Each structure stands twice: as structure tokens, then as C-alpha cells.
């Protein structure tokens, strides 16, 4: 069975897109945003999460692990661990969790269909998010997923970083109601430094989607000290003036809640480098859009 890497299907999402939505989080992302708050979404492979606060050091995992990846202690030896999940079942404290599993488009549709009545009542649907859905492999299966959802009459929103060949966007455009499109930095150098990639393709795809009549909502993550100054935001206003049609602009303030996920993955956190922009700052940035005539700007999801 061909499957796609999914790390979560969350129901009753009411802040990302219209109505009551089910968000499918795909595992794997082509970018490495320095402030990423979903580090478990970066690699496409399943990964073991271990919660030190919950662990009671009982040793059940070490006894059960077929590869000795729990070693003689209870920590995770990331070199040896193949994310088989055996330790998850034996842990009486629930300190171990496997993030990511393969799901066929049919399985995803079956899960999404359960809340059909909620979508229809609220004008909601499914949001494909991540990680990054546009780089999920095999992409033909993503296209098929979109077609199947569309055939069920389920609205699709695609939450994307834009870092994928345009043919892919073109292939699902007809099934997609709206793209929630991230712009993390307009300055190419800044983008390379903090995101780990050039932003040319991202901006090019955005222009093409706008040209081809896709509904777009821009999502701009703002990290104090990195990309939360007028000089960072004004080029987005220029982009709009230039003709990119976005029906809404969301300013998303950075938050620190992703930190603990790094620890669960056995990675070091992001340190003190990133800060949360103040409410006044956010307001003043929103004002830049309003002054340019774009009234549909909101702070938050």
C-alpha cells in the first residue's frame, strides 16, 4: 500500500481557515526555520519522542527494545533507534510516543469524512498542513488525496511554505479552495540565513498562484529581533501593490511553546535568540498594510 507520512490528524481546528476543519499534518519539510515550533515535523521518517518529565525510570523500555536503543538506561540512543514503537506499548508512564505513520489517501479521507456534518454546518473542511504537504512523497498520492476529498465534496485548504515545483501547485489547484501561504522573509539573504534556503521559488510560486486565480491568504510569522521590523514587512506590502491578490493577511507572532518538543526529540532548544513581538509592534505592522489600503489584516491564526 502506498502511503503518505502523517504525524497528526487534528479535528475541530477553528483558527486555521474557515469553519470547523480537520487538519492533516504531513511529516517532512524542505525548510529549516530556525524558530520552528514543530521540530518533529521536519523529517519525513517516524521519530520517537521521549518525555523526561513523565519517565519513571522503570526500565520497561530497555527490557523490550529489540535493538538496545534504550540501552541500559532509559534514554533514547538516536543512533540505534529505528522508531519501531515497541517501547511505546510497554511504557506504563506514557513517556514514549511515536511521531509519524504512513497513511494512504483512502485512510486519510475516511478519517476526514467523519466530520463531514460539522464541515457542512460551519463552512469548514480539511486543511493539509505540516511539515509541508507540497513536498510529501509520493506526490501523486497527494494529488489523489485532493481529488478524493474533492469528490466527497470536502473543502480543501492547503497550508504551505511554497517551497516546491510550481507543477505541484498547478496539479492540485483545481481541488483547492484556498492556499494559506507563508512568507517568512522577503530579503533573500535573511531568508537563507534563518530559513536555510533561497526564497526565489517561494515568491515565484506565489505570483503564479495569484496569476492563475487561486485564493490566497498570506501568513507572516514575526519573530522579534529577526523579521519583525517595518523594513521586513513593507516589501510584502509592495508585493501586494505589484498585483499579488491575497484575500487576507495573517500576522503570526512567534511563541515559545515549541521549546519542549526539542527536548522530547533529544535536540537542544532554540535558546534566547528569538523573542515574542509586543502587541503594539504587531499593531503598528498591521497598520502598514491598512495604510496601503489592505484592510483584511489580522493578528493571529
Amino acid at each position, binding site marked *: 500500500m502506498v502511503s503518505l507520512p502523517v504525524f497528526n490528524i487534528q479535528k*475541530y481546528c477553528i483558527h486555521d481557515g474557515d469553519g470547523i476543519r480537520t487538519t492533516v499534518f504531513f511529516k517532512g519539510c524542505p525548510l529549516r526555520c530556525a524558530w520552528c515550533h514543530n521540530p518533529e515535523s521536519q523529517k519525513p521518517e517516524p521519530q520517537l519522542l521521549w518525555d523526561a518529565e513523565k519517565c519513571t525510570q522503570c526500565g520497561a523500555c530497555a527490557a523490550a527494545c529489540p535493538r538496545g536503543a534504550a540501552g541500559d538506561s532509559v534514554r533514547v540512543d538516536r543512533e540505534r533507534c529505528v522508531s519501531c514503537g515497541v517501547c511505546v506499548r510497554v511504557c506504563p508512564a506514557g513517556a514514549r510516543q511515536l511521531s509519524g505513520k504512513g497513511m494512504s489517501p483512502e485512510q486519510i479521507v475516511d478519517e476526514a469524512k*467523519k466530520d463531514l456534518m*460539522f464541515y457542512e*454546518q460551519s463552512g469548514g473542511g480539511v486543511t493539509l498542513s505540516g511539515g509541508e504537504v507540497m513536498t510529501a512523497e509520493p506526490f501523486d498520492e497527494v494529488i489523489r488525496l485532493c481529488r478524493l476529498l474533492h469528490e466527497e465534496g470536502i473543502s480543501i485548504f492547503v497550508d504551505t511554505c511554497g517551497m516546491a515545483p510550481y507543477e505541484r501547485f498547478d496539479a492540485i489547484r483545481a481541488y483547492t479552495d484556498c492556499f494559506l501561504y507563508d512568507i517568512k522573509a522577503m530579503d533573500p539573504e535573511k531568508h537563507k540565513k534563518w530559513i536555510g534556503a533561497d526564497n526565489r521559488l517561494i515568491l515565484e510560486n506565489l505570483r503564479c498562484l495569484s496569476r492563475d486565480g487561486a485564493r490566497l491568504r498570506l501568513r507572516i510569522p514575526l519573530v522579534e529581533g529577526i523579521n519583525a521590523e517595518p523594513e521586513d514587512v513593507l516589501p510584502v506590502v509592495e508585493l501586494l501593490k505589484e498585483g499579488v491578490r491575497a484575500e487576507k493577511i495573517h500576522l503570526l507572532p512567534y*511563541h515559545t511553546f515549541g521549546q519542549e518538543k526539542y527536548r522530547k526529540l533529544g535536540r537542544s532548544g532554540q535558546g534566547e535568540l528569538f523573542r515574542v513581538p509586543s502587541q503594539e509592534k504587531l499593531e503598528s505592522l498591521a497598520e502598514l498594510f491598512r495604510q496601503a489600503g489592505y484592510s483584511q489584516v489580522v493578528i493571529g491564526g
Partner: protein
Amino acid sequence: MEVQEKQGGRTAQEQHGCTERVRRLREESLNTQPRIYMERAVLETEAYQKYEGTVSIPELRALTLRHFFANKSISIPKGELIVGEKGDGPQSAPTFPELCCHTVEDMRIMDQRELIRFAVTPEDLKTQEETIIPYWENRSIRHKILNSMSDEWKAAYECGIFTEFMEQRGPGHTVGSEKIYHKGFADYKEEIQKAMESLDFMGDPEALHKKEELSAMSIACDAVMILGQRYAELARSMAQEETDPQWKAELLTIAENCTVVPAHKPETFHQALQMYWFVHLAVTSELNPWDSYSPGRLDQHVYPFYKADKDAGKLTRDQALELLECLWIKFNNQPAPPKVGITLKESGTYTDFANINTGGIAPDGTDGVNEVSYLILDCMDDMKLLQPSSNVQISRKTPQKFLLRACEISRKGWGQPAFYNTEAILQELLAAGKSIEDARRGGTSGCVETGAFGNEAYILTGYFNLPKILELTLYNGYDYVADRQLGLPLGSAEDFHSYEELLDAYHKQIDYFLDIKMKGSNIIESIYANYMPVPFLSIITNDCISKGKDYNAGGARYNTSYLQGVGIGTVTDCLAAIRYQVYQEKNIPMKELLRAMREDFVNDPQILSLVQNFTPKYGNDDDFADAVMQDVFGYYQKAVTGRPNQRGGSYRINMLPTTCHVYFGEVMLASANGRRAHKPVSEGISPEKGADTHGPTAVLRSCAKMDHIRTGGTLLNQKFTPSVVAGETGLMQMANLIRTYFNMDGHHIQFNVIDRQTLLDAQAHPEEYKDLIVRVAGYSDHFRNLSKALQDEIIARTEQSFS
């Protein structure tokens, strides 16, 4: 009154009440210490000593009410616009020794305990000991009931297999119709007279019984008219002496109101509310019926008066609101009369379960929401009182504006209003054989119980402990908590070779206990029919007059007996765990599981983890678990529904627990789903605590797989943290959740918005709060999965979300 303070979720600076008068009356209602009111018992004893043996039993009951209303002390505290108390002021609770007679010890307990205390004076105690106990001790209905029950019934009752409603309060669970606004009691008296004149003493063998009952109803009409007259006279004489011109004028209005009602039909909005209140007092003074009494579709009943007064320039919206708030305070002034024995000790609430349905549809099937409906929403929001329980009916036709306003009040987190589904109620009533006209006038009372308002006696008979019966099934019918053989000896769990065999044994045990329960209930119904008629309630319940029959004897147009299934979430998860882990996956041998359960899982953390974390559970939209729920529900529903009761009607089921799920859990060992020994079982049709981990839509989907239409009401509690329902989006989607659940035929939903205290508790006991989802920042997560620091952060911000 701590319960109310907490329930109201109020802060010191919040204002409750649209005027100074209302605020003051509300404060008095909340701050007065509840106390015992002995006058009723004393006057009742006098009446019995005077009349018993000289008249029929129905007439004796009516004469007792008349004697009470003619002689009880009455007063009109300054500022009241709606007058009349059951006792002698706010929070004064009469006793009903004819139902259950308090011992001296009972009275000491209620006086001395800290929570839900009723003050008893030394003089009260003396009266109880010297006058009340000697006369009533062996005459009470409770005494008759306990003497009439079989040994099996007593054993099952004592071990917590079921409870019995009628042993301490009378049959009631009933609700009024619009008739009292079209007809005064002088008019009812004429109708009763005509019915008496048309009795057939030539051909009807019951004619004498009917005559006695009708004569009693006629006396009961006099009783309430005497009370009205006394209030009219008191107000008039107080007005003569009064120097404050405003209060003087108000007293004269009260005098005028009480001259018109209850003898005649009301002419104004103010009189309509006063009419209801006299009726309420009479129903709840005559006997102590369960769930007191409720006005039914109050918004629709009083709207014509509101409109006429407003059009004539006699009433403003604000004045109408003030009058409604005065009525609300009257409800809140009446604590539920205290019980006796163990029930007294365990009873943790003052609530009398009056319940007002607002909204829904009109008798012609059109949208029933009117201006008074919105006024009532404002009133409940303003008052934030435990009583009356203020709820809304939502139909497909209900304007979104009304639903959103109700959601706005509900998300403040004090549990009201609850939401009832009009279309589900309609279908339930039609499926139970009611006419479309009567069904459209119906609604829910008590907690969620469906009834044809004004036309039906729908009596709750008891809670039925579904998980405990499964426990007995696993141990060959033996109750290890009470240490006695209680159920049928059908073999132990290890003897069952398949899930089907186990299920079959469970069904047999259910049948066994249902037979015991229903035999008991039938006897109890007959006891009430013969010894404790309620002629006043019979006047205002349709068809009692034309049939010449009492409410308690089958006089109402429809007569239903409800049996309430409790613990469907727990029993589903237990059976699902056994089916999945023992029979299907074979991860746990039955013997091991039973041992772990007997030992409360203390030696088996892995078995506990398997049944808790790696087993399909109800509340997650998981078909494996939900199919088990459908099996259990379906069996229980079919086993009960349609069996005849003693009043010409039949049994049906509800799925609601009130607070009985706590008691039902106490009498149980640990269960197969990982529920620890003596912990509460699941409440209503809600999933087991912590079992639902896929958010609200999955809970609603699981719950809707139950066939609500075949019940007389189901209860669902949905928890939220404030941030999930915050803002315009939160409100809109809350409304959409309700609409969708109701489109799926869900009967009822109420929202508990989690407060800070609960989050603190969840931090200390994460295993009990696995279902708790919080919105973190742009995303939601399970509270238990967050680090302590993050939990603290969320706790810190939870308090201010609705400031």
C-alpha cells in the same frame, strides 16, 4: 450558600440584577441560611387529626392543603413584586412527614454539617420529637414502601444496583401548560363541578372514586384561592399603613394582582407571573414532588400579556425584566426539602430541579422565539442563579441570533443555559405515542427528561447501575464489595469462551435486576395511587378532571415511567477492553485481568497501561468501541421500553445520572477499562473521564451513534477551556457544534468551561484529565502533554480569558 456562589462564578464587583431592588432580593436569597420550616408539618398533623377517617383519602389531602394555606403565616417583605413563599421566607424548607419522617438524628445532622446545612432550632427539634414523629413515623409512605419491598429488591438497592426515587419525594417531574393563563381556579371549580354532575352512577363502577377525587380537586381550588385572598388582604392592609409612596403603590398593585389571580385568569404580564407562582406554591406545598414544578414554555405562555401591556403603554421592557428577575429569585428562595437517613447524608445539593425551557417551536410548528425569550436570556445572564435551571430549546427554526446569545451566556462557564434539541424532543414524544399538538408543546424538565408539558405524568423511578451489573457478571454474580451473592450464578468470566458468551450472561443479569426493579416500582406506583393522591396537581394536568382520576393514579393524558441508565461510557470501555485485549488480541489472559482488577491494578502497571492507553474507547468516534456502546444501549433500551406500568402507561429509558455516577462508582471495584476502585463511573452519555482524546467533534459523533430518539432524554457534558470558545470564532463554532450535534439527533448538550481550579487539579491528576485539550498558541494540545512550566502558563492565563 457556597454552592451557589461557586455556580454563579461571580466576583465581588459584578452586579446581578437590573435594579437595586432585584440586587437586594437576590443577595437575601443567596445569603440567608437555609432552615427547616415546621409549620407545614404541624398544620398537616392538625388537619389529619381533624379529618382522617371522616373523608376519602383524596379529600383528606385537599383539606390538608386548604388547612395549611388558610393558617400558615404569610408576609410580604419590602420590595417584592411577586409574592408568596412555601415556608416563611427565603430558604425556609418545609418538611413532608407523610412521605418521609425525619428522625431526631436526621435533624441534628442537617443542622450540624458544614455543607448543605439546614438550621434546626431546639424548638423545631422538640416539635419533631413530640408531635411529628409519634404521628407520622409509621404512617409515612417511605415506611409503607420499605415494608412492601422484596428481599431481592432490598439487597440490590443496598448494594447500589439501582436507586429508588419515590422513597423520599413524591412522583412529579412535571410541568405546566398554558391553561392557567386562560383560566382561574374559580373557572376550574366550575369545570370540576360539571364533571361531577356528569358522573354515571348507573353504569360506572368507579363513579364514587371519581366523585371523591373531583371533590378533592374542588377543595384544592379553594385552598389556592384562599391563599391568594390572604395575600390580597395583607397587601391592602400594609398599603394603608405604608408611608413610602412607591412601596404603597406597589402594595396596592400586589393586592389587585392577588384579587385577580389565582381565582381568575390573569389580565397583565405581572399577574401572569404571579399566577404561575401561586400554582408553583400549591403544587410544591401539597406534596414534595420530584423536580418541584416548572412553568414549561414560559416565554410563549406570557408573551401575549407582555405584548398587550407593552402595546397599551403599561409596561416597558425593563419593567418586564425586573418582574422576571423577581420570579427567578422566588425559585431560588426554595431549597429542595432535606431528605432522611443515608440519602440525607449523601445529598450534596440544595437544588430543587425546576427547569425552564426557552425558545423551541410554537404549537403550530413555527419558530417559538419571541421578545420574552430574549428577556429570559438576559434574566438568566443577570441572575446567574442555581434555580431555576434556565435552559434553551434550539430548533432548526431558531434564529442564529438567539443561539449565539445563549452560547455567549453559556461560555461564561457556569453551566447554564444547557441546550436541548427541539426536533429530537419532538421525535421522542411522537415515538412514545403523543399527538403532534402535544409533542410541540413539550420539552424537557428536571435534568433532560422529555415530557408532554401539561399533559403527562412522566415519573423517574431510579438510576440503574449498568457497569456494576457487568462487574457482577464477571464474578459469577458475586458482589465483592458487599461480600454477598447478589446476581445470578451464571459462571465466572474465565468460563466464558467468547465475547458473545460474556455479553449473553451480562444481558441475563440485566434482565434479572430489571425485573426486581420494576416489580418494586409497580408496587410503589400503586402505593402513591392509593394513599398519596395529589388533587391540586391533578387540576392543572390535562385529562385528570375529565377522567376523574388523580395524577398519581393515571389521570394524566400520558403516563410514563422512566428508568435512568447510568455509566454507559464506563461499561462500554470495559466491554471494549475485554473484547479487544482478552478475546481479540489476546494480550491479557482473562484470569490476569480479573486479578489486576481485584487488586486495583496496583501490581500491574502494564496491564493498566494496555487497557487505558492502547484500547479503543467510547468518545473517539472509533467504531469498535462505539459498536459496543450501541449493543449495550440497544439491549437496555429494548429490555425496558414498553413494559406496562401501573398507571396505564409504560416504561421508557433516560440516560442521565444527576450525581449518582459518583455513588455508583463507590460501590464498585476497579473495572476493566482501568477505572480505579470506587472512583465515579462515567456520567450521562459522556465518555469515561479521560477516555476521549480526539476533541469535541469525535465525542459528539460517538454520542450520536446512540439512538437518542428511542430515549426520554440523554445528558452530555462537554468541557472546554475558555480560550477554545473565546472570541467571535470560538462563539460561532460553539454554535456550529450544537447545530451539528442536533442535526445528528443529539438530545442535549451543556458546556463546562474549565476554570483555573480544574486546571490545577488536572496538573495534579493528569490520568483523570486525558481528554482535556487546551489551546496553546495557534494550536491546541492535550494539557497532560505539556510541561509543567507550560501548564502553569496556561493556568495563569485561563482566569482572565473572560474578564
